[in-house]
């Protein structure tokens, strides 16, 4: 058991989702995910899965402290997510989610560039199906946009990897480091990973697609893609200065857009962008404390963000409504959901006793320790914004306020159980941070519970609550959507591509006419009169005037031959 690849167990478990008998399927899925968690816990430090492929050694499984801690939280959240999704109507979603989780584990345990890339793309494809299992026209359209962005991101990553390997580097994964910042490979790989980490302006796929998945699908989506990207950043780009500022911008960007958001799940999606910002900043700072903070925050974030998506999912499940402007007064009807939501909200806000407090403050402390006053202040400001919208605005609009005489669908026990377990883990980590700190891969000592830190955190949250109370009228408002960078490919791309196609066709037709004009000079003069007569009678076929398929094929072949010739000569 100590050398079994946990991703394999999840892939096998995904097959169980096809089982037609509900009880058997539920037991099988839970058992499979629990086995995968056990496999991660029992992984030996020297466990290896290597394949020799024509001169290369592909390492599917390589274990170190960094991959172990990410693997642990991925496997743990898979168990909770499957528990939450036990009653999901679409079995395909459970299968896709398990493949997605397995691919995320594959990324984390990949020992070389090739297996990293393969699992990376598998993650994109499987998560696409999780989005599509939302089953609405909106989720279908959002899924296509998600595919567009991730295909582009994956291609950037692949180009970067190929350039990196072509420069003579080994296939095994190794940190790219600060020395490489002039190489194109460095930037291509960074861009490809930044797409998955949702760094603005490459982030719009996240708030576009995640809220369109089903209630249980969003829980899985919130956990893997962005955090796998954080893992890759931590492994390859620790100490890259550009990430310090990218992360700080992310943290504030997400917060500002979340304040504008009227859809509760889109609000939470923007807070993924914001929270991942802390991790990206931590990776960019690159000190032992900062990297530990980034990893610890990823661990804690996965738990409380899953809890928040589960709780808002339960609200959506019970009411069928997702806009905050249509909710209200639910605290009386769903007291347990409200309570569990608040545990998640206090965790993400970094309130003492909850797990956000012990991880977020590590990143801020690392920025302070590295003498980055502006970064530290801006990250504190992002904490203010987090408490403002997740801790105050969302519960104020959904759970407080006037009652709307709700007719609620009862929330299944399995969903409540999963939420309860996630909430307990958030509290347990907040109370006993030593358990997590002992598993962090970088040696750093940090003590969150100093009296001064608790007092200043409570002051910050108290001041935020005061500001909320003063300005709360500003946060109501009418239903509206907020434009984000997806505007470029939702509004501008369709007319641009139509224009491109129309122009290409016109050019082709003009070319065709030129050809026909020339053709007349080359043919048998005796036939000219016959042609003219046919044309006058209207017998000429319109199909002849269309652009033939042969021409583009010929062009492609010519260009390919040219490129091949060039590389043969230049190479």
């Amino acid at each position, binding site marked *: 058991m100590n050398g079994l690849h946990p991703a394999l167990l999840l892939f096998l478990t995904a097959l169980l989702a096809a089982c037609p008998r509900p009880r058997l399927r539920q037991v099988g899925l839970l058992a499979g995910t629990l086995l995968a968690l056990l496999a991660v816990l029992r992984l030996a430090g020297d466990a290896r899965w290597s394949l020799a492929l024509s001169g290369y050694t592909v390492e599917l499984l390589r274990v170190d402290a960094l991959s172990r801690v990410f693997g642990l939280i991925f496997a743990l959240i898979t168990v909770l997510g499957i528990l939450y999704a036990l009653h999901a109507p679409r079995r395909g979603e459970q299968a896709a989610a398990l493949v997605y989780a397995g691919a995320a584990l594959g990324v984390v345990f990949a020992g070389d560039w090739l297996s990293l890339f393969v699992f990376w793309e598998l993650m994109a494809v499987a998560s696409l199906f999780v989005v599509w299992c939302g089953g609405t*026209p*909106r989720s*279908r*359209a*959002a899924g296509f946009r998600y595919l567009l962005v991730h295909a582009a991101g994956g291609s950037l990553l692949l180009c970067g990897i190929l350039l990196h390997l072509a420069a003579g580097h080994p296939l095994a994964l190794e940190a790219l480091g600060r020395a490489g910042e002039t190489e194109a490979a460095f930037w291509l790989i960074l861009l490809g990973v930044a797409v998955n980490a949702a760094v603005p302006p490459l982030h719009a796929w996240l708030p576009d697609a995640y809220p369109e998945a089903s209630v249980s699908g969003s829980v899985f989506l919130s956990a893997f893609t962005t955090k796998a990207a954080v893992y890759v950043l931590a492994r390859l780009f620790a100490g890259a200065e550009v990430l310090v500022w990218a992360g700080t911008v992310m943290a504030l960007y997400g*917060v*500002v*857009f979340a*304040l*504008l958001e009227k859809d509760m799940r889109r609000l939470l999606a923007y807070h993924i962008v914001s929270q991942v910002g802390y991790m990206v900043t931590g990776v960019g700072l690159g000190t032992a404390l900062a990297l530990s903070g980034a990893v610890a925050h990823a661990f804690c974030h996965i738990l409380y963000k899953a809890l928040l998506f589960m709780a808002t999912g339960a609200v959506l499940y019970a009411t069928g409504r997702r806009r905050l402007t249509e909710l209200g007064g639910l605290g009386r009807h769903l007291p347990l959901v409200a309570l569990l939501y608040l545990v998640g909200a206090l965790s993400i806000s970094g309130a003492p006793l909850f797990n956000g407090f012990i991880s977020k403050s590590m990143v801020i402390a690392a920025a*302070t*320790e590295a*003498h980055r*006053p502006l970064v*530290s*202040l801006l990250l*504190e*400001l992002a904490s*203010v*914004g987090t408490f*403002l919208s997740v801790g105050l605005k969302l519960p104020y609009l959904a759970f407080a306020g006037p009652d709307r005489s709700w007719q609620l669908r009862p929330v299944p026990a399995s969903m409540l159980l999963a939420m309860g377990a996630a909430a307990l883990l958030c509290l347990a980590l907040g109370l006993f941070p030593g358990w997590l700190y002992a598993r962090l891969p970088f040696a750093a000592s940090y003590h969150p519970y*100093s*009296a*001064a830190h608790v*007092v*200043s*955190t*409570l*002051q*910050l*949250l*108290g*001041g*935020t*609550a*005061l*500001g*909320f109370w*003063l*300005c709360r009228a*500003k*946060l109501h408002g009418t*239903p*509206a*959507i*907020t*434009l*984000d960078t997806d505007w470029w490919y*939702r*509004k501008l791309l369709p007319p641009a591509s139509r224009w491109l196609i129309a122009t290409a066709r016109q050019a082709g037709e003009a070319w065709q006419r030129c050809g026909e004009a020339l053709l007349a000079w080359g043919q048998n003069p005796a036939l000219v009169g016959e042609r003219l007569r046919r044309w006058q009678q209207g017998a000429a076929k319109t199909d002849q005037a269309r652009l033939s398929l042969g021409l583009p094929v010929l062009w492609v072949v010519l260009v390919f031959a040219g490129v091949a010739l060039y590389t043969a000569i230049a190479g």
Partner: protein
Amino acid sequence: MRRWLVFSFLAALVAAERFVHAHHPFWWQALPAFALVYGLAGSVVLIYTAAGLGHGWLQRREDYYGDDAS
């Protein structure tokens, strides 16, 4: 009544600063009630920034992107 409870809690937090031993890497952290004021000012600034961005520029009707976004 409730309002006074909140205010006295915040006052107690400010008073508590005097009794905890703290190490301040940046000078502003030593200002009295800095975190409280930063939280208050920060939340107001964020709310007004977001509202300004939204109303002035970024917010649209819900059917802006056509059918699939309705």
